[in-house]
């Protein structure tokens, strides 16, 4: 019996161990407990404890699964409970973190409910506090909750706290923007309030009135700043803002006052910036400035851009717009000296300073053209000042083309020039002066800088609807002529189109006619002379003049000779062209010389051909009829050479005499007064005496 009992225990323990090893702790524990009732042993108790612990862990894992399911269903309370129970067993960090999160969320949810209730009850401060809690429960980053909190704070009159929150929010909706602006206004930040409200497109009279109230408060605030001589930057910025914003914000009187505030703040702030050498900031203010550009502001621009150009050549261009008008302004010159006599000396000094500055940047692309442009402007403004400085009116028109264009006053300057044509020495000076102030002016600067291609842009760039006047017409004629000449010198053989307006230009500008003829006469590339010839021929046809005719004649002769020298024409063609040249200008000495050389060349060639063919009659006639002694000299040279050859031969005396007699006979038909003829005659006479004797 005892053996059977032991057997039973062994089988129970065996089953228990099997369940234990299979991980079935529930059945294993049951078997172990049955065994322990029959046999009290320490190892069985340990196994029971182990199974109990394993069962607890399994149970906790099940709870985690349940918690996750509950979370998915949105049942945060049940999820929290399951996680809490599970973690009592598992004690894992991630479960603890989840538990904390659920607690915050549940608190936040509660807080939002409380906040809404407080809001509904009109307790906005409490609502704000609840929203703060709810927001904290969500990590403090919930923009909708922050916005609600800030708006509740505004409602509760806690403006500073509200503003601190609004500052951090994007504020895409009107409600938030309105409250933000409202809070700012309540804090005295009127300017910021208006800026926040700026984009609120709400058609509501009460809101419009509130904006007007805030604008007026801002005006009053700026006046206070001005009285305290404090914060000029704000006076300038806020007044500028008020001026450029909605007209309806201010009455006309208030607007005028703001204009004064703006001008005051701007000038005072500029002085502060000047002391601090903040020239860039000043230039920004001046660039965006509203109101008239007074001489004082022109001078300020001049010196600010001068200062900036000292370090940066890119600033030269703008500096040059203002520099000369500033120093030629009579009201600025008054500050130079009490003595008008000294004004000009100071101006010269300032001009020299500007030129030195330009030269400092000479090796940059900014400085390259600046000196030429400055020189042009200097001449223009000196001329303008010369006929305006004695006038009471229009002295503010003493300006360069650049500034006139900048101010939109080019037409006024042009009218002034038109009304004072008699002041100029001649029509060309008058037109060229005026042309700089037209839309074509910039192209003239390029022309003077030898930027021919850029200058020629005028011929195509001008707007078709631009009203043409005599100044623009002149500029176009001048640029067309200069560009054509440039292309001509650079080998373009099709330039006639650029000279179509040149005949009219020469009527105005005789100096340009001289320029063309001198260029033509000095041109050495013989192969391109034809192009010059074509241009001169065209101009001569359209507008005959002595200068062009003589130049054309000479170019024709030179080209003909050059072609002949290069074997590109025969003497006959040469003679034909040169004769035409001579017809144009009978005084063309070169043509005359060429003709002489050519005829001599012709006659000699024919005479020697006749000699060669023993046609002495023909040779003698050529020599006799020639206008040139050179031909006859060659003829008698041939006679002398022939005589010497006859004498050197061993022929019979009678034969020699007969031949010498022939020579003598032909020679006398050409001329007897030649040394060789004397020799022949003497020889013949001597031989005749011998025959007779």
């Amino acid at each position: 019996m005892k053996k059977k009992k032991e057997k039973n225990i062994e089988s129970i323990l065996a089953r228990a161990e099997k369940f234990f090893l299979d991980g079935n702790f529930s059945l294993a524990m049951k078997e172990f407990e049955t065994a322990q009732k029959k046999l009290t042993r320490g190892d069985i108790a340990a196994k029971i404890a182990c199974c109990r612990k394993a069962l607890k862990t399994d149970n906790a894992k099940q709870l985690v699964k349940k918690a996750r399911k509950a979370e998915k269903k949105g049942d945060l309370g049940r999820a929290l409970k399951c996680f809490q129970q599970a973690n009592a067993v598992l004690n894992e960090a991630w479960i603890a973190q989840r538990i904390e999160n659920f607690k915050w969320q549940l608190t936040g949810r509660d807080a939002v409910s409380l906040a809404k209730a407080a809001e509904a009850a009109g307790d906005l401060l409490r609502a704000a506090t609840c929203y703060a809690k709810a927001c904290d429960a969500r990590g403090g980053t919930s923009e909708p909750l922050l916005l609600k909190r800030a708006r509740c704070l505004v409602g509760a009159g806690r403006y500073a706290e509200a503003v601190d929150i609004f500052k951090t929010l994007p504020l895409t909706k009107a409600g938030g923007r309105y409250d933000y602006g409202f809070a700012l206004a309540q804090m005295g930040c009127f300017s910021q309030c208006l800026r926040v409200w700026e984009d609120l497109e709400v058609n509501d009279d009460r809101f419009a009135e509130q904006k007007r109230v805030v604008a007026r408060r801002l005006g009053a605030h700026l006046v206070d700043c001005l009285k305290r001589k404090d914060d000029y930057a704000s006076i300038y910025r806020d007044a500028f803002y008020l001026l450029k914003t909605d007209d309806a914000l201010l009455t006309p009187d208030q607007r005028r006052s703001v204009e004064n505030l703006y001008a005051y703040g701007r000038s005072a702030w500029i002085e502060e910036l000047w002391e601090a050498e903040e020239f860039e900031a000043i230039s920004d203010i001046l660039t965006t400035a509203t109101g008239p550009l007074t001489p004082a502001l022109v001078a300020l621009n001049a010196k600010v851009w001068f200062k900036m150009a000292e370090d940066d050549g890119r600033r030269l261009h703008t500096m040059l717009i203002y520099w000369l008008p500033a120093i030629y302004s009579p009201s600025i010159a008054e500050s130079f000296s009490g003595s008008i006599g000294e004004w000009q000396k100071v101006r010269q000094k300032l001009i020299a300073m500007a030129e030195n500055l330009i030269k400092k940047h000479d090796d940059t692309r900014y400085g390259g053209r600046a000196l030429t442009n400055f020189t042009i402007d200097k001449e223009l403004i000196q001329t303008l000042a010369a006929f305006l400085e004695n006038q009471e009116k229009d002295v503010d028109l003493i300006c360069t083309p650049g500034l006139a264009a900048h101010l939109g006053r080019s037409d006024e300057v042009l009218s002034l020039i038109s009304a004072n044509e008699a002041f100029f020495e001649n029509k060309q000076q008058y037109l060229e002066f005026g042309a700089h102030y037209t839309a074509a002016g910039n192209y003239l600067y390029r022309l003077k800088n030898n930027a021919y291609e850029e200058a020629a842009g005028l011929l195509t760039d001008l707007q078709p609807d631009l009203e043409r006047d005599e100044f623009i017409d002149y500029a176009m004629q001048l640029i067309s002529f200069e560009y054509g000449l440039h292309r001509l010198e650079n080998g373009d053989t099709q330039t006639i189109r650029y000279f179509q307006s040149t005949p009219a230009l020469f009527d105005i500008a005789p100096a340009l006619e001289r320029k063309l003829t001198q260029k033509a006469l000095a041109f050495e590339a013989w192969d391109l002379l034809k192009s010059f010839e074509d241009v001169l021929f065209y101009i001569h046809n359209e507008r005959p003049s002595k200068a062009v005719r003589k130049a054309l004649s000479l170019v024709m002769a030179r080209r003909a000779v050059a072609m002949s020298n290069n074997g590109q024409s025969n003497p006959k063609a040469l003679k034909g062209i040169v004769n035409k040249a001579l017809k144009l200008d009978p005084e063309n000495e070169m043509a005359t010389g060429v003709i002489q050389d050519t005829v001599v060349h012709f006659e000699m060639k024919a005479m020697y051909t006749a000699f060669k063919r023993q046609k002495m009659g023909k040779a003698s006639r050529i020599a006799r009829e020639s206008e040139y002694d050179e031909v006859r000299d060659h003829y008698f040279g041939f006679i002398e050479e022939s005589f010497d050859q006859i004498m050197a031969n061993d022929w019979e005396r009678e034969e020699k005499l007969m031949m010498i007699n022939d020579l003598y006979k032909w020679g006398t038909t050409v001329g007897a007064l030649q040394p060789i003829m004397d020799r022949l005659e003497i020889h013949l006479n001597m031989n005749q005496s011998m025959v007779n004797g």
Partner: protein
Amino acid sequence: MNPYKILNVDADVTQKEIIQAVTRAMREKRYSGRELAQAQKILLDPISGAAQRFLHCVDLSRIRQSLERIEAFESNRGPISDLTRLSIFDEDA
């Protein structure tokens, strides 16, 4: 160089003040003797001085003289608590 800055003087400096400023600047030793001499020479010459004054000095006080009396906003001072919060935006948060 800016002679006004070197000698630390205003645009309307007198000849006597220029000389005093040079003496003071020599004691301070912030600029070399050569720079001080050059600055003095420029400012004592009426032509050079006027040119330098134009370039280095800015005085816009004349612009402000006529602008100091601004009365249009006299009645708009005090607290702004009378500005009441409008409810038209309440539904638009």
